[in-house]
């Protein structure tokens, strides 16, 4: 009985098992495919409980049959190595394929086939699928908040200008490269602030003044995260240097600051900025809500930034410090000319990740009443003319945020790879 070769596949009966196995797998996948896409049931003659498991069992037998080591067939070997190494793996493979087949038709029909995009009112949505009309009608609100429609060009221009100035470093000549750090840390934030202040807020040069309460949507996300990033970077640098200082008082103040902000959730910080912070200011001193929120997030993210920069400072070999000191450099000279240029280059990916976290955290400003994208969704959701489209709104927002964050994380990963080879 040791030569029971029908179920034990090897190279001697490769033709037979290959044909049988492929046939069985094809049957099993075809059955699920037809079942989910065309609602055809090939094996409807079986009782329902059996027919539910049949494709899986047939597929398992098929995959088991074609699992031949060193078959000599290149394609078969690659297949076996990648999806069919053991029974357990084969089962998982089949389950994943079945789940994908089962999930595609309903989501496809909901998102595209049965969806509506024409028309301007809720009544245009007659299909059973998604109502993209809702997104289309509210699109400007989701992007620009309550900002007046005819003034949207101001936000667009401001963003284009800021981005354009940001790419300045790419075109800088060798001579200018020395000043790039100065440009990005000091000059660029100031210019960007002035652009956004004068262009978006207005009130000067014949531009209509628009209060920050009207700002909103995705553009507010960008404004908040951009300002928080450019302000929290210098703060983080000072704190990181402070934490590595030899002076006990400076060190403990930095440690206390960093650990405090890292220990509390952002939402309580925002609560603090909106209800507790006004109590701490002089009575006749008014500060805009948006400014308070930006300050709060900057203070919060500064602590995280500091830890990232400290990582860069710590990864420099001690020899760099010793060499700089032996040349007679003082503390500031040593840090500005030797330590920081090397350390900051190392922490660029880390800063990117911090920025990513920042962008993902900005929807939280919704809890203090600023209508950022999540806030606009909440507003639109409760609008009596457009009830019942929460799903579409959240999927739309999720897609937008996913694209932004995924692109950024890939970019930061590329930077990491780039600087890894550099050292």
């Amino acid at each position: 009985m040791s030569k029971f070769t029908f179920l034990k596949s090897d190279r001697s009966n490769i033709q037979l098992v290959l044909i049988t196995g492929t046939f069985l797998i094809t049957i099993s996948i075809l059955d699920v495919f037809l079942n989910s896409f065309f609602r055809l049931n090939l094996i409807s003659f079986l009782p329902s409980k059996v027919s539910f498991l049949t494709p899986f069992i047939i597929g398992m037998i098929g995959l088991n049959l074609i699992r031949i080591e060193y078959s000599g067939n290149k394609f078969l070997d690659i297949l076996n190595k990648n999806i069919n190494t053991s029974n357990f793996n084969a089962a998982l493979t089949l389950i994943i394929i079945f789940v994908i087949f089962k999930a595609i038709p309903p989501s496809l029909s909901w998102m595209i086939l049965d969806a509506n995009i024409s028309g301007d009112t809720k009544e245009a949505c007659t299909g059973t699928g998604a109502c993209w009309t809702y997104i289309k009608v509210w699109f400007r609100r989701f992007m620009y908040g309550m900002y007046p429609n005819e003034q949207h060009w101001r936000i667009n221009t401001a963003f284009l200008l800021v981005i354009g100035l940001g790419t300045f470093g790419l075109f800088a000549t060798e001579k200018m490269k020395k000043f790039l750090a100065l440009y990005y840390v000091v000059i660029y934030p100031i210019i960007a602030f002035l652009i956004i202040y004068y262009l978006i807020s207005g009130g000067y040069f014949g531009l209509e003044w628009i209060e920050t309460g009207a700002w909103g949507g995705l553009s507010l996300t960008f404004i908040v995260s951009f300002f928080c990033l450019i302000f929290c970077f210098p703060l983080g640098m000072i704190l990181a240097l402070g934490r590595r200082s030899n002076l006990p008082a400076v060190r403990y103040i930095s440690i206390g600051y960093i650990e405090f902000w890292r220990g509390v959730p952002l939402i309580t910080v925002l609560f603090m900025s909106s209800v507790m912070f006004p109590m701490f200011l002089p009575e006749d001193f008014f500060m805009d809500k948006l400014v308070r929120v930006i300050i709060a997030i900057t203070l919060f993210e500064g602590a995280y930034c500091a830890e990232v920069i400290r990582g860069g400072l710590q990864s420099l070999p001690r020899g760099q410090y010793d060499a700089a000191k032996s040349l007679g450099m003082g503390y500031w000279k040593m840090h500005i000319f030797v330590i920081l240029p090397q350390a900051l280059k190392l922490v660029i990916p880390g800063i990117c990740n911090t920025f990513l976290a920042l962008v993902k955290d900005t929807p939280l400003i919704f809890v203090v009443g600023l209508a950022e994208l999540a806030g606009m969704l909440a507003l639109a959701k409760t609008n009596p003319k457009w009830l019942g489209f929460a799903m579409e709104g959240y999927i739309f927002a999720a897609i937008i945020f996913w694209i932004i964050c995924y692109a950024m994380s890939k970019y930061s990963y590329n930077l990491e790879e780039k600087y890894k080879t550099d050292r």
Partner: protein
Amino acid sequence: MKFRILAYLFFFVGIADLFIKIFYGNIFSDLTEDYYEIANPILVFTPVLFFSIGGIFLKESKVSLTLENFGTSRIKYYSPQFICLSVVVLIFLFFTFNAQMNMENRGIDFGFGFLTQEASFDMQFSLMDYDGQDPYWWAYVVALLNTLLVAVLGIIFCTIIGVIVGIARLSPNFLIRNSAAWYVEFFRNIPLLLQIFFWYYAALRALPLPQDASPLFGVTYLTIKGYYMPAFIWNNLNIFLYSILAAIIAIIFIRYYANKLRDNEGKQIPVFYISLIILFILPALTFLAGGVSLNFEIPVLKQLSATSFIYDGGIAVPPELIALTLALSLYTATFVAECVRAGIQGISKGQKEAAASLGLTPNQVLKLVIMPQALRIIIPPTTNQYLNLTKNSSLAAAIAYPDLVLVFAGTALMQTGRAIEIVSITMLTYLSISLAIAALMNWYNKLIEIKEK
């Protein structure tokens, strides 16, 4: 030596200060006029300040980093520190002064006396008995328990999902590897708040009404109003718990004995199976002999009015809790998965090969060689993720789950108007949770770190 004496002096002052404040200082009542008049808001926290200064001095006395080994002039050593300290103190004084002026103008007294007042608001969901007549401090405790419940549930689920996905990312199976990678990329790059909103407002709203729900696993119902489960009704629960405790102690002893046996004589005994058997048999015995019994209270559909139905009896898990736990665990699991993957990949291939060449079975290689080393890499970043999850659980406020932020920093603050007290209590609570977990994990890291001989 000078520093150490100073440190103990500060500790003593801190304790004395705390003692005076609790017993004579009236900080828990509203009569604060004759005590700490001008700088009241900041003086409440002086014991903390004294303790931290004492701690700093104690640490510095061990390091002995003083002027001598700083290697420069006296003025360069002291002047920056003096300037920094005075700037910080000035900022604090400025804020305190303003706060005092503002509160005086609005006629608010600073103090924690309100904590004993009647809260007079209700909570939708609580683990302990709570109603509107209870004081604010009890509302705080109940809300804190709700927060901890979400955090613990989230940590359990995110660990399970994260470990599975992390291992799946290293699977030889192409499909599994890539689905795991896509899971990570997908859930990691969407803001958590949006995910919570999605589950709560979109996904869970698509569930059936209570009267249309079909039972899941026979006795549980997943409806738009939450998840209804049968409740356990125990007789002699304490005996059962003691038996579990006894089983755990027995398992610890057996592990200790097995480790000793392995180190001294090289014998291996199947510790895992023995522990499993003990863990099942000891509690099972209490059912037979100890008089423990278990009944189920199955939820029953009840009609409130013509169109309104709920399930009565059993445990009702509110949809807020479901949405929050789902979103938190799915989101944090992506980070945990990356930590697990990095940990396993961080073990060099040579370790595995060396272990295999010694004749260990693949299971033993994983258990005795790979995992102990991988855990050292995995645990610190994973702890950070647990901390993040705990802090992120405060997003509960956005979907009205009664957690610390919503109940205390939301409702209680609106009712009492005591912004400074309430926000600082909330922040200090989160801060102490974070610091406690961090301290615990540092201790654990020290315990498992490589002890070089």
